[in-house]
């Protein structure tokens, strides 16, 4: 087909024109592309750079090393132990089932553990290490390491976990750690992101819980580069964080161990306080439990064994348990009366075994009566009638005021769990909580530490230390933090008449050193260690008329739960007091029988720094004491860890 040159010319012109229009359109798109590049890469570059960094950089927490806990002599109470674990990485393992099968021939692996590991492996990405076994021995971990070529993808790892070398001895004081629970997260006003780490452990009870922030330290961070599926490519940098502070307790581990051994078989508590500093030297609560079981995750069988035990091993009876102080409260009543000038030491009150108040009869523990009693004898022989009389003179408000001055009814700021406030009743208190008016009978009961009055062994020990020193001793549990001594102001004087205090102390000395004293049987004959004390027997419940008809008259005939609590408080040595001791034996019967001997032995141990010397005991008691000492379930002393630590 022919075409005229004119046609060709015209077609070329048309193409050129349309070509130029097209080119103009393309130039427009070209400009759009250029502008978009400029917008993204220059104007918004900073923002996108940030997004890219967020994409690639993950911040991982490095859990801080938990601070250790030592006793006052540098013995380790709570330690961090290397914990060997085995992890498996799926992508390196190849045939996971086969590798786990081989692994189970080297180390003990429960079928459930294998199933759990397999489920976890399936859930996670191929490159994520999954824990297979935990808390392996050195031999087991060595076996895994040696057989590494046959175990592709399996690698031994080491971490730190808490261990309490002294087990039950310190369980109530140091407490224990455990994994963070949802309950912990809701309860704690704690935003520390380290709590989100799956295997992180925090203090659950005791010092571990109360001084959690101090012991925990601060988590470090590491910035890591990850790819799109989360695989870690490399570590960019790290901030090591701050390890937790080491704590030194005022507790003497050897004394504590002795106390726990001495209390073996009882449901009892002992607190030993330094009279000068308020240092808590021992806080024994029996029975105890092994805190290490809780760290590892206690089995439900073990746990129900602990909770069903009627001796309540989990409760810290020293601070948490409150008991009617019984006759150990009589010093307070006596001191209140003396300070108010409502009685003189010489004045005698006649005890015929009871007093009558309206239609009610208030009995003395000695039914036959004590006869003429002065202040000294009233304490030494623990005459109840004498205090019934004082109570009516002084009134409850003054008695309660004196009790609080002596450290009762106050929650002492000791960093252990569930420190009880106890109870020192007032008229208002009764109105508010019991909805009835205070009656004189209440005052009488309170004056002998019965009725509403409740005190913990810790409070009783503080009370005794205050009586011994005349100063407002505050109990102290933390001796130093990271080697820096915890400063405490020297205790103020109680502002009491020293003559009155001396009167009380002398009467307390008579309790355990005069023939008529209620604790004469538990006397110490070595003058250097002689103690001044006070027995107490607090009624849990009166013996009912019904029971009397059934022939139950004596406390020992009652079931254990309803027997009296036995109490004893003392300070020693009498001439220059160093320590104050309180003993409560739950449902132990009479204080002179059940509590005083314990107090005597603990006092001797604390003062001599070792097993009580037989020479300190009366001659005829020595064979029995010797036998008792040889039967004590003491932990043999190790000196190895002592020198190197702290």
């Amino acid at each position, binding site marked *: *087909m022919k*075409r005229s*040159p004119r*046609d*060709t010319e*015209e*077609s*070329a012109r*048309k*193409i*050129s024109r*349309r*070509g130029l*229009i*097209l*080119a103009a359109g*393309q130039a427009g*798109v*070209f400009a*759009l*592309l*250029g502008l*978009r*590049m*400029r917008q*993204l*890469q*220059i104007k*918004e*570059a*900073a*923002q*996108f*750079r940030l*997004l*890219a*960094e967020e*994409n*690639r950089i993950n911040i991982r927490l490095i859990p801080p090393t938990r601070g250790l806990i030592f006793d006052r002599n540098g013995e380790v109470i709570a330690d961090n132990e290397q914990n060997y674990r085995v992890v498996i990485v799926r992508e390196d393992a190849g045939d996971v089932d086969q590798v786990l099968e081989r692994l189970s021939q080297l180390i003990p692996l429960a079928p459930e553990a294998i199933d759990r590991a397999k489920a976890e492996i399936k859930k996670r990405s191929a490159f994520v290490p999954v824990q297979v076994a935990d808390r392996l021995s050195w031999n087991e971990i060595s076996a895994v390491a040696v057989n590494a070529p046959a175990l592709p993808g399996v690698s031994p790892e080491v971490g730190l976990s808490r261990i309490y070398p002294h087990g039950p001895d310190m369980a109530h004081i140091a407490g224990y750690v455990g994994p963070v629970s949802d309950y912990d997260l809701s309860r704690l006003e704690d935003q520390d992101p380290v709590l989100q780490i799956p295997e992180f452990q925090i203090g659950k009870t005791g010092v571990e819980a109360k001084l959690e922030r101090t012991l925990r330290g601060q988590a470090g961070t590491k910035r890591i*580069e*990850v*790819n*799109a*599926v989360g695989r870690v*490519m490399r570590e960019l940098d790290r901030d090591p964080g701050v390890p937790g502070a080491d704590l030194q307790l005022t507790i003497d581990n050897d004394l504590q161990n002795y106390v726990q051994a001495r209390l073996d078989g009882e449901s009892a508590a002992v607190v030993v306080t330094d009279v000068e500093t308020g240092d808590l030297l021992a806080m024994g609560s029996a029975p105890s439990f092994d805190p290490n079981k809780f760290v590892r995750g206690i089995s439900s069988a073990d746990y129900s064994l602990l909770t069903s035990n009627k001796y309540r091993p989990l409760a810290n009876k020293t601070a948490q348990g409150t008991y009617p102080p019984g006759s150990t409260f009589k010093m307070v009543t006596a001191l209140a009366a003396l300070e108010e000038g409502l009685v003189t030491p010489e004045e005698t009150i006649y005890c015929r075994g009871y007093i009558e108040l309206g239609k009610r009869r208030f009995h003395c523990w000695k039914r036959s009566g004590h006869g003429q009693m002065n202040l000294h004898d009233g304490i030494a022989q623990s005459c109840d009638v004498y205090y019934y009389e004082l109570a009516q003179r002084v009134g409850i408000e003054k008695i309660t005021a004196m009790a609080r001055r002596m450290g009762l009814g106050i929650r002492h700021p000791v960093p252990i769990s569930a420190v009880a406030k106890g109870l020192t009743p007032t008229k208002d208190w009764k109105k508010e909580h019991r909805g009835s008016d205070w009656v004189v009978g209440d005052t009488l009961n309170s004056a002998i530490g019965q009725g509403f009055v409740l005190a913990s062994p810790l409070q009783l020990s503080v009370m005794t230390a205050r009586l011994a020193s005349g100063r407002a001793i505050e109990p102290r549990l933390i001796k130093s933090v990271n080697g820096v001594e915890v400063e405490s102001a020297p205790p103020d004087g109680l502002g009491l008449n020293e003559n009155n205090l001396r009167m009380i102390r002398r009467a307390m000395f008579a309790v355990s050193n005069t023939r008529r004293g209620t604790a004469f049987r538990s006397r110490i004959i070595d003058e250097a260690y002689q103690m001044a004390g006070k027995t107490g027997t607090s009624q849990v419940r009166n013996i009912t008329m019904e029971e009397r008809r059934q022939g139950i008259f004596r406390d020992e005939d009652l079931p254990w739960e309803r027997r009296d609590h036995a109490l004893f408080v003392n300070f020693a040595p009498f001439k220059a007091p160093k320590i104050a001791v309180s003993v409560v034996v739950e449902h132990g019967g009479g204080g002179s029988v059940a509590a005083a001997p314990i107090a005597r032995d603990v006092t001797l141990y604390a003062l001599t720094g070792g097993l009580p010397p037989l020479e300190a005991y009366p001659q005829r008691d020595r064979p029995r004491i010797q036998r008792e000492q040889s039967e004590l379930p003491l932990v043999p002393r190790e000196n190895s860890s002592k020198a190197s630590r702290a």
Partner: protein
Amino acid sequence: MSYLEHSHKSVPSGFSKVLYLNWALVLLLVAAAAFGFLMLYSIAGGSMTPWVEPQLKRFVFGMFLMLVVAMVPIWFWRNMAGLAFGISILLLLAVDFFGTVNMGAQRWIDLGFMRLQPSELTKITLVMILAAYYDWLDIRKTSRPLWVLIPVLLILLPVFLVLKQPDLGTAILLLGGGGIMMFLAGVSWIYFAAVFTLAGGLVTAVFVSRGTPWQLIKDYQFKRIDTFLDPGSDPLGAGYNITQAKIALGSGGWSGRGFMQGTQTRLNFLPEKQTDFIFTTLAEEFGFVGAFSLLMIYGAIVVFCVASAMKTKDRFASLLILGVGATFFLYFSVNMLMVMGLAPVVGVPLPLVSYGGSAMLVLLVAFGLVQSAHIHRPR
């Protein structure tokens, strides 16, 4: 037969033709491909495998093909246009029977030594047949309905076949390329106005069809459109690609993060980074400077095509050159608009840079045609 009106004496012959090649265009093509090699090397983490080596081989082969095509007189190719188009249509049909399923779509024919993507081939043969058609057609008939219908059918046939695969990106390129050819040939504005009106109606129809039994496009294509309109709506799902691509682009900043230092690329945040999204890697590692340089190279290639077309008086040649240039332009502009979040994600590679054999070979052959027209233009 327009060449008969010109003197053949002025056309170079024999090996002297090589001297008359548009060497600037060759250099620009090499430069664009070099960007590709560099990025593929980086994406592979500093390795020639698995992408640079085959890509390099194909490029050398493609350049050789380009020279061979360039040496052959343009009128030969004009005569071959119908055959070439016919073959590509047959191949498209063959894909339906022998094609290999890849990424959910049938696009390949395995030829043994390479996998051929007939849809790529069609892009160039469609330009050829349309150029030949309008060269043949009496210019006064250009806008007559019957003579408009024929090229429309020529365009819609491969578009339909490609959509069947389904390959929305190629269909759009074919439609765009064909439309541009008709526009260049001088088809009346009225038709284009009508088509755009119709297209508007069709788009509406497509959206209305969603969820009905006669749904016109696939669910994933709807998803892509949704994602394009609002990438933030599903940042971890369908919007992930676009979001991550924009992050990579933007984080490159002015001068980029450095060769092989792009974190988005290296840490696999970018999708399909060796193929459709390779521009994001370039933009991330070489920044605005690098990305804009590539854009400039592309622009220069198009400018050379337009200039070359303006020089030749031959209708077939100028239509062909402009058509190839326009197709090339559509390639990179749709790709860049897509990765920069200005267009929905459709599978269009970045020409000469993305990893892939068919597109590169076909493009180089197309530029061989441009070179042939350039060499054999009447002087």
